[in-house]
Every structure is written in C-alpha cells, then in structure tokens.
C-alpha cells in the first residue's frame, strides 16, 4: 500500500511545467476509491482522502495539505491500513516548510518528518521497534515533497503542451531525491465521480525507482479546466497494477 501511495503522489509531479499561478483553495476535499488488480479483477481496497485547510502560527499562515489512506472496513480485520501524509506549504508558492508521514500498515509503523530550511532538509524517521534516526541533506531549489507537488501540478497550464512533451524533475521521498519524468499524452474523457464525465489531460509518469514498472503504464488524468482535479490514476508496480478513481470532490 505504501508503494501505491508513493505512485499516487509521484504520478502527479508535473511542476516543472509552466505554471499559471492559480492558488489551491483551502477547504477542498477529494475522495478516491483505491483498487488493486487481483487476477484480472479490480478489487476495492482503500479510500484515499485528500484535503486542504489553513493553519496559522504566530508569524505565518500555511496551507495544510493532507492525504489519508484507510482500508475499507471489510479489510480491517485482515490488513488494516491507516496512513497520513501531510505537507505544510506557503499558500501562494506551495513551497513546503514541513512534511510529515505517519503510516500504520498491518501493524508495521513508520513516522517520518522533513523540516525544510532553504535547500536543507532535516529529516527524522522512526520505524516500529527501531531507534529514531536523524539525517540532514540538501535538495535542489525546486525539489519538493510528494504531497505539495501533487497540488502544484494543478497550477500548471497544460493547454499549452504538445503531445509527447516530456519533463524531468525531482521530488524528495524516503530521504532521497528521486528524479521523475513526465509525459503529456493528450486529452481523454473519463468518469470523475460526482463531477460526471470530464475531459482530462492524460499524463504518463516514469520514475527512476523500483516502485514503478512499465513504459506509459503509470498514468494520471486531470480535468482539462482551471481546477485540474485529478480524476483517475493508474499504476503498475512490481507486485501488480491498480488504480485510484475519484468518487467525490467538494470545495473545489
């Protein structure tokens, strides 16, 4: 499931495309149904909820980007998953200040925190039954965490892109910078939950990681409008294939 979520995030990394500066609204909520291909049949496993809200400190105001992954109740007795991925970003630039990840997958737990200070990241990681580890590493100026990048992609003006156009960019995941290649593949109409059928931008993702497999098999569809709501994600990983389909979108 961790890999599924990683893919869910990485497939959205398209920020190196030209942006039109549109801000992400606070109070947005997107709910996805996560399915996994079991012997040729898609089986629904979990719900992924992505939401935004404002968080103010004494000095600044941040946009809190949250992604939660919870298995459906029917699976909880067999393999319960409760993951939270969070990013606290500048509301205008979407530059991250803090990234947190708390995962609980069938009893296996891991907590991770990245504090961003310029090009330096101070990370803290704690796995179940293991001591806490700390690490400091540098990242590129445009490198972001996976969650903030997911939202940044939606500020991109894809109407200017040509089919087959590619772009390589960097994200930070598991205390490492991961290069990701994106390819704009044109438009397709797909089902978008409570939004009905929508014309979408189709983007293929390739990452230099063992988590993704196949050429043009990791795909994301974003509505071809100003909101660029993610409607469908398909992924191919070493242990199989799956998808995340939008079931409801509110506050967009």
């Amino acid at each position, binding site marked *: 499931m961790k890999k599924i979520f990683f893919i869910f995030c990485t497939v959205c990394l398209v920020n190196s495309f030209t942006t039109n500066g549109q801000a992400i609204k606070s109070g947005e909520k997107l709910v996805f*149904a996560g399915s996994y291909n*079991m*012997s040729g*049949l898609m*089986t*629904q496993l979990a*719900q992924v909820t992505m939401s935004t809200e404002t*968080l103010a*400190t*004494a*000095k*600044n105001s*941040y946009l*809190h980007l949250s992604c*939660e992954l*919870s*298995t*459906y*109740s*029917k*699976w*909880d007795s*067999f393999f319960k998953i*409760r993951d*939270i991925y*969070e990013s*606290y970003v500048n509301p205008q630039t979407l530059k991250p*200040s*803090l990234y*947190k990840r*708390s995962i609980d997958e069938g009893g296996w737990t891991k907590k991770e*925190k990245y*504090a*961003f*200070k310029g090009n330096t990241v101070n990370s803290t990681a704690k796995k179940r039954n293991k001591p806490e580890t700390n690490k400091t590493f540098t990242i590129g100026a445009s490198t972001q965490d996976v969650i903030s990048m997911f939202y940044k992609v939606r500020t991109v003006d894809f109407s200017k892109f040509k089919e087959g156009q590619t772009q390589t960019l960097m994200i930070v995941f598991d205390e490492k910078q991961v290069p990701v290649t994106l390819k704009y593949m044109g438009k397709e109409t797909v089902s978008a939950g409570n939004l009905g059928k929508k014309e979408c931008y189709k983007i293929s993702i390739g990452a230099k990681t063992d988590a993704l497999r196949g050429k043009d098999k990791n795909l994301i569809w974003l509505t071809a409008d100003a909101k660029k709501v993610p409607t469908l994600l398909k992924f191919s990983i070493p242990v199989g294939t799956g998808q995340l389909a939008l079931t409801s979108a509110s506050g967009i």
Partner: protein
Amino acid sequence: MKKLFLISACIFTVLAITLSVLPFDTLAFLPIGLAIVFGLLLLKKSEGQQKKLPKILLSISVLCSVFVLGKTLLIKDEVAKDTQFEKEKIETKQEAKKELEEIEGLE
C-alpha cells in the same frame, strides 16, 4: 478423468467458499466459475447415485455466486470510524504547529 474432475470440483468449491466469505469481492467468481465447470463435468461423467455429490457441489457454488453478487451490489464499501486515528490526526496537527513555529524561529 472422473477422479480429476472430482478432485478439482472439490478443491475449487472449497476455494469458492473461502473467497466468498473473505472480502475479495468479485475475485471469488474465479473459483466459483471453475467449481461450476468441474462440477458440471463431474455430473456428466457420473451415473445414478453418483450424481448426488456433483449436485451438492454445484448447489454450493451457485449459492456462493449469489452471496458474492449480493455482497457486491448491496454492501457499500465504507471506512470504519476510527476514534484512535482521528485522535492521532488532531495530535499530529497540534505537533505540526509547534514544529512550524520552531522552523520559523530558526529562520
């Protein structure tokens, strides 16, 4: 050949029951389908009183398919309310606020 059909029908019927009970949704139709196929083949090869077992196996498979179909159509996939998880979310948000203030203090 009849022995092979008998063993296959029994194995797939057991698998059909198992996957029907477990939350595997329509995946259970795979063993159900195979159990029905082998059940029918066994029925064809059987005579007289021997037809009783394949009939039982076929009945079980059909019941399993109805059960799985009912589950798929009538039971909505939902996430259980998890108070512990909700509590953790509140706590992590409170911690994040403190951590952000620490980061701001270092800038």
